[in-house]
C-alpha cells in the first residue's frame, strides 16, 4: 500500500540553520497495516508524514502509494489517497464554516469541484448519521460554525472527515497530544474503531509509548532522520516501555530523555 524508498530531506540547506530531517528512510506498509511511530523531538517523525503528504518535495528517494508514484505530485493532488489529522485541532477544519460545510469539503476529496450545489439533502442526512456515531451530540449542530466546538470535538470531526472518503492511508500526527487525557482517550479509541471497521492502512505518531505499544500491528522508532528500530507481530505485542527506552539507548547511544514522553507514562 505504501512504499517509502530511501528518502532524504534537508531543510535550509547551506545555511547555519541546516537541518537534516530525513536521512534515508525506508518503509513498506501492506494493506491494513497500522504502524505507530515514536521518537524524540526532531527525530523526523512529522517530516516523514509531511513528505508522504507532499507538504514539501523530498530531496531524494520516492514515495509510492498503492502503486502510484506520488513523489512529484503537489499536496492537493495526493490528497485523494490520504486522510490526515494534525496535532493542532485548529488545523484540520475550517473554523468559519459550518460542520456540514466542512464535511462536504471532505466528502469531495479527490473529486472535481464544479458548479453543482455544495450540499444535497441526501448528503446532509448521511452526515447526520455519521456524526451520531461519534456520540458527541454533533448530529444536531450541522449548521454550527466549527470554530465554536471544543478541541476534542474538532479533532473527532477532523478524524471523521479524514475517513469518510475511505483513504488509502490514514496519517495521524500526534492527533491527541493537544487534548486533555480523557478526550485524548476518546479520540484515540475512535481512531482505532475507524481503522478496524474500515480496514484502513494507518500511521500514527505518538509521544505516548504505552499507546504506541497498545495500538497497531507495527511500531517504528525514529532518531536523527532514520528508522532505528522496528517491531511487528508477537515481538511488538510483548514490548514494554522499559524495552523501548533500553532499545533507544542501545542503538542511538542517547537517553530517550524527553520529559514529555516519560511523564505521559
Amino acid at each position, binding site marked *: 500500500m505504501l512504499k517509502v524508498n530511501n528518502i532524504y530531506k534537508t531543510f535550509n540547506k547551506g545555511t547555519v540553520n541546516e537541518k537534516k530531517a530525513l536521512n534515508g528512510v525506508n518503509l513498506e506498509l501492506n494493506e491494513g497495516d497500522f504502524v505507530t511511530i515514536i521518537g524524540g523531538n526532531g527525530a523526523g517523525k512529522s517530516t516523514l508524514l509531511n513528505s508522504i503528504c507532499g507538504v514539501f518535495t523530498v530531496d531524494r528517494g520516492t514515495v509510492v502509494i498503492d502503486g502510484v508514484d506520488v513523489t512529484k505530485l503537489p499536496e492537493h493532488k495526493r490528497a485523494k489517497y*490520504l486522510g490526515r489529522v494534525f496535532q493542532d485541532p485548529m488545523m484540520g477544519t475550517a473554523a468559519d464554516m459550518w460542520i456540514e460545510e466542512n464535511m462536504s469539503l471532505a466528502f*469531495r476529496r479527490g473529486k472535481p469541484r464544479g458548479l453543482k450545489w455544495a450540499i444535497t439533502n441526501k448528503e446532509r442526512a448521511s452526515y447526520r448519521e455519521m456524526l451520531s456515531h461519534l456520540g458527541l451530540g454533533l448530529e444536531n449542530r450541522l449548521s454550527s460554525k466549527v470554530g465554536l466546538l471544543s478541541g476534542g470535538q474538532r479533532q473527532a470531526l477532523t478524524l471523521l472527515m479524514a475517513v469518510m472518503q475511505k483513504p488509502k492511508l490514514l496519517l495521524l500526527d500526534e492527533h491527541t497530544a493537544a487534548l486533555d487525557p480523557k478526550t485524548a482517550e476518546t479520540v484515540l479509541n475512535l481512531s482505532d474503531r475507524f481503522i478496524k471497521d474500515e480496514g484502513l492502512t494507518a500511521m500514527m505518531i505518538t509521544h505516548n509509548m504505552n499507546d504506541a505499544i497498545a495500538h497497531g500491528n507495527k511500531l517504528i522508532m525514529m532518531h536523527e532522520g532514520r528508522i532505528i528500530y522496528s517491531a511487528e507481530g508477537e515481538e511488538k505485542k510483548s514490548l514494554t516501555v522499559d524495552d523501548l527506552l533500553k532499545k533507544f539507548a542501545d542503538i542511538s547511544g542517547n537517553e530517550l530523555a524527553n520529559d514529555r514522553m516519560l511523564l505521559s507514562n
Partner: protein
Amino acid sequence: MISILSSFAGPVAQGIIWGIMAMGVYITFRILDVADLTVDGSMATGGVTLVVLVTGGMHVGLALVIAFLVGCVAGLVTGVFHTKFGIPAILAGILTQLILYSVNLRITTQRSNVPLSVDKYHILISLRHLTNAIIVSAIFAAVIIAVMYWFFGTELGHSLRATGCNPNMARANGINTDNNKIIGLVISNGLVALSGALLAQYQGFADINMGRGAIVIGLAAVIIGEVLLGKVFKNFALKLLAAVIGGIIYYIVISLVLKAGLNANDLKMFSALVVAVFLGIPYWQRKLAEKRSSKEDKANA
C-alpha cells in the same frame, strides 16, 4: 423633508455603485483573506474601457460586459504574480495597479480624462436622472448578490471559502488553493471594473485617477456594513447587502461632512483615518480582553 431626502439621492446612487465595488473587495478581503490593491487600477480600467467603447459606437450593454472581462484579466495578472511568481499578495496587487496605470492611458490614447455625454450617447445611468440611476444600480447590485450567493453555495464556491479560511485544511482535502486564489481575484476585479464602468456613466466621464484610494472606500463600505449590520445579517447574501448599505452610508456621511465644511481635498485623509480606526477596533478589543483575563488569572492565583 422632501428636499432633505432628495439631497441624499446623489450619495445613495454613488453609494450603491461603490457598493458593487465593495462586494469585490469583500471577496478578496473577507473570503480569501487577501488585501488586494489591484482594485485601484481596475476601477479606472473599467471606467475608461466603457467610455472608449461607448464613444466608439458600441452598445452600452456589451461595453459593460467587456469592462467586466478586462477587470477579470487584471485580477488574473495579480493572481499569477501571487501564486506563480511567489510575490506577496499586497505587492502583487501594487505591481498590477502600476501596470494598469500605463494600460489605462493606452486605452484612452494617452488622455487623462475621457468624457461621456449623456446627451450624445445612450447610457444606462447618469447623475442628471438620479431616481433612474438609483433604480438601475440597485438592480445591478441585486443581480450580483444573487449570482454571488449562488456561486459561493456551489462546490467550487465552498472550496474558495475553505481556501481563505484554512489553506492547509483545503489542500489536505484536495483543493488547489493557488487556482482558487486566482479565481477569487478574477471575480473580484471583474466586479470592481464593472463598478468603475457604472461610475463613469453616472459621472459622465472616466478619469485615469478615478480609482485612486478605491481600496479604502471599498474597505470602509465593508467595515461599516459589518459594524452596523454584522449582528443581524448572518446569511451570505445579507453580508454582501451589508457591504452595499455600507457604501451608501459612507457616501451619505461624506456628503454631510462636505456640507459641514470639510475641504474636499482632505477627504482621502478623512476616509483613510476612519478605515484605520475601524480596523483597529477589533484588535483593541482583543488586547483589552487579554489584559482582563490575565488580571483575572492573577487574582485567582
